[in-house]
């Protein structure tokens, strides 16, 4: 097949599909690891597979799948064991991981350089950045694309990942309840007579399998990115575990497709040469996480900022209300002194004015309180003075120390928290009358 479509099928489809499968295989264990705050375990495993991979390569004498796969998996499990051993000996968890994976990585590089395996066709750079660019698919010309012969021409890395991704997804679906229990409440699971440790071991094994299968095609760096970043983004977007797993896989796949398009296809279309596919996938995933962190519906930074601003505006409006009510109170009692107005910066002041006008406490542009404002203000000042009474008489603070605290506590009204209200309390510590409840 020729033309742009044929080129896409030959050069781009397989890298995209392979990276997408890696994304799915990594996102599933990655989500659970992240929830257990063990995201770095995946990172460690991704670095620790190298020596086993090289030994497998040396033993089998070439890039034959089985031995390398077994070696890498053995090496990953050995690393998990070494981390557990060091932690048991009292080494801090992060240090145990750091020590283990650097030692394994060092051993791997040494084996690679020292044994001449480098000459065969594995080199350190390839380990880091993967070989997505060298995956291609040349289906036999005289066969339909979906025939067995054509599919058999797919690269081995793709086929291995297909199997592993399928297994990981099926295992997660079948053991979903156990995974959830072991992730969120291992003690309960233990008490209920199940074995959370077994589930954790299974999770480590699944992580190792996903890493080992992905590693050769996409490289260490993208494996770490696929394990951590989509799961992190999904965690920001939803609280439901099942949704989180699916979302993480979807984000990973999106990053894989988009990354290849941006890194390899777009530069070529613009007449340049393609950039590192794995690198642009990782970068794109980072950008997607940044966007998720900003705009996520419940936990996003923007939402949280807006919520904080709303609280600030409401607090300022209530402070304004309390001040105006006190001014009118003094005027009623024919006093000439006036309380200090709340000091608000101009922007917040305007927003507070508008907030009060919306609530019907005063009309926009006028200082006078409406009947509704008088009622609300009375309740607010009552709450303030009751808090002051409580702080002085029940907690024993000095009368001239409680005003600022009461200024904060009075705003708890909006959360339904009211001060203690003993019968017969009629004056606050400064001798001002406490307004009646109604």
């Amino acid at each position, binding site marked *: 097949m020729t033309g742009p479509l044929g080129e896409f099928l030959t050069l781009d489809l397989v890298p995209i599909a392979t990276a997408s499968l890696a994304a799915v295989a990594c996102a599933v264990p990655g989500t659970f690891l*992240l929830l257990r*705050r*063990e*995201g*770095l375990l*995946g*990172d460690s495993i991704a*670095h620790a597979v190298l020596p086993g991979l090289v030994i497998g390569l040396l033993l089998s004498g070439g890039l034959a799948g089985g031995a390398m796969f077994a070696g890498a998996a053995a090496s990953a499990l050995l690393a998990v064991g070494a981390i557990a*051993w*060091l932690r048991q*000996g*009292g*080494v*801090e968890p*992060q*240090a*145990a*991981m*750091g*020590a283990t994976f*650097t*030692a394994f*990585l*060092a051993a791997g*590089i*040494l084996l690679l*350089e*020292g044994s*001449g395996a480098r000459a065969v066709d594995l080199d*350190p*750079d390839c380990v*880091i*950045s993967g070989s997505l660019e060298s995956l291609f698919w040349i289906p036999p010309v005289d066969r339909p694309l979906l025939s067995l012969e054509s599919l058999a021409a797919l690269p081995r890395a793709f086929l291995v990942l297909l199997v592993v991704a399928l297994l990981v997804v099926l295992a997660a679906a079948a053991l979903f309840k156990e995974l959830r229990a072991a992730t969120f409440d291992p003690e309960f699971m233990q008490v209920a007579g199940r074995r959370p440790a077994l589930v954790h071991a299974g999770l480590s094994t699944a992580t190792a399998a996903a890493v080992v299968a992905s590693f050769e095609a996409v490289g260490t*760096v*993208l494996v*770490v*990115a696929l394990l*951590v*970043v989509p*799961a*992190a983004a999904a*965690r*920001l977007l939803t609280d439901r575990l099942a949704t989180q797993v699916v979302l993480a896989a979807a984000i990973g796949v999106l990053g894989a497709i988009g990354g290849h398009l941006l890194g390899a296809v777009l530069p070529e279309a613009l007449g*340049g*040469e393609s*950039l*590192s596919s*794995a*690198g*642009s*996938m*990782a*970068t794109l*995933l*980072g950008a997607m*996480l940044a966007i998720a*962190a900003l705009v996520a519906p419940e*936990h996003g*930074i923007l939402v*949280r900022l807006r919520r904080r601003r709303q609280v600030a505006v409401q607090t300022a409006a209530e402070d304004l209300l309390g001040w105006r009510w006190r001014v009118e109170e003094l005027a009623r009692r024919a006093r000439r002194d006036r309380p200090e107005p709340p000091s608000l910066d101009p922007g917040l002041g305007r927003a507070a004015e508008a907030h009060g006008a919306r609530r019907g406490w005063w009309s926009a542009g006028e200082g006078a309180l409406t009947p509704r404002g008088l009622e609300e203000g009375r309740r607010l000042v009552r709450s303030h003075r009751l808090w002051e009474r409580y702080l002085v008489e029940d907690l024993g603070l000095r009368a001239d120390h409680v005003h600022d605290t009461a200024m904060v506590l009075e705003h708890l009204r909006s959360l339904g928290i009211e001060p203690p209200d003993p019968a017969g309390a009629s004056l606050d510590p400064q001798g001002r009358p406490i307004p009646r409840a109604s």
Partner: protein
Amino acid sequence: MIAILAAVEEAPAGVRLLDALLLSGGFHATTVVLGTTLLGIAAGVVGTFGLLRRRALLADAAAHATLPGLAGAFLVMGWLGIEGRWSPGLLLGAGLAAALGVLAIRAIVRATRLGEDAAIGTVLSVFFGAGMVLLGVVARHPRGEAAGLEDSIFGAAATMLPGDVVLLAVVAGIAVLAAVLLLKELRLLCFDEEFGRVIGRPLGAVDAILLGLILLVVLAGLGSVGMLLVVGLLVIPPAAAGFWSDRIGRMVPIAALVGGASGWIGSAISASAPRLPTGPMIVLVAASILVASALLAPRRGVLATAATRISLRRRIAVDHLVEALSERDDRGWPLASIARERGWGGATAALVLRAARMEGLVAGPSTALRPTPRGLARGLAVRRNHRLWKAYLVRFAEVAPSHVDLTAERVEHLLAPEIVRELERSLGEEVASDGGRS
């Protein structure tokens, strides 16, 4: 120079190793050995504080994050017309990118619900991925003599010059000086940050200095051990030091020693034979020291804890023997009957008897054992402890009387004299001396 190199090439590996260790392996080998030793010392000192502050893998993220900085600085300098390999410029770029990575980790931890593991994994993989993309751009840059950039991924100690050794000496000097001058503050930062803040120490500034030192060591290590393995030097020596002491004043020099020795021995081994890259060799030497420490360290090592456990088990068995004898009349009893009661095999029983004889607790042939006066006293003491602990459990811990025997069976051997006195005081003498069955 060439003649020296040629001579070095001809000597057998063992001689060359010895020469390199003794700094007589030729000018070049000596440079590398000195440089990596200084780096190891600096990393050991700084890494100890990083480890105790539970920031071991922050350095890993920072190291990975230098790659886009290096590549970016290369490109920027290219546009500005500066020679692309001007290394202060490259280091500046690397440092800026690493600092940016650390800030990104802080921002993620503070502004989102994600944990530090997710933040570190994200920054590490995304920054490195971006670096790979930029390296792709650099590779086809018109002034593309960029091969040197990739060296800093795995390190290329062979390119070390005397000037680099001077720089590394300065870095090591700064690290040691900072550790000596700021030891008090750093200790507070690691162990009791809140207390330090309350008494008004500028711990924010000290934390920033520590972070700066970590970045400094990372940058210093790029050239020789590379960005993937430099974290090994920052983590492994302090972890090994932790097995020998838990006092910070001792851990720091021990870690410096381990780091320095790793650099010294690792680079000497690397110089003694071809195809043994320096960075991995140094990390592997450090890892070997860690494993040896974990096995051999006097109190926390595996062997020491195993020895403690064995001697404890032996003491308990001897206790059981004299306890059993003290419960019987003094006509002399066969070892076999006690062994049956306790479920000991023949070999175990013989070992227990030997230990008891060595302590002078039993007398008579093994068919008619009698306790010596000392043995009788110890047996009675054990029974007394058992009864005291049981009474304590029933009276104060409100454990059902039918449930206390099992725990008392274990605790009776472990009660320290002062606890026994305390128990006697609070339970009254009558409990300990009543004639009831224990």
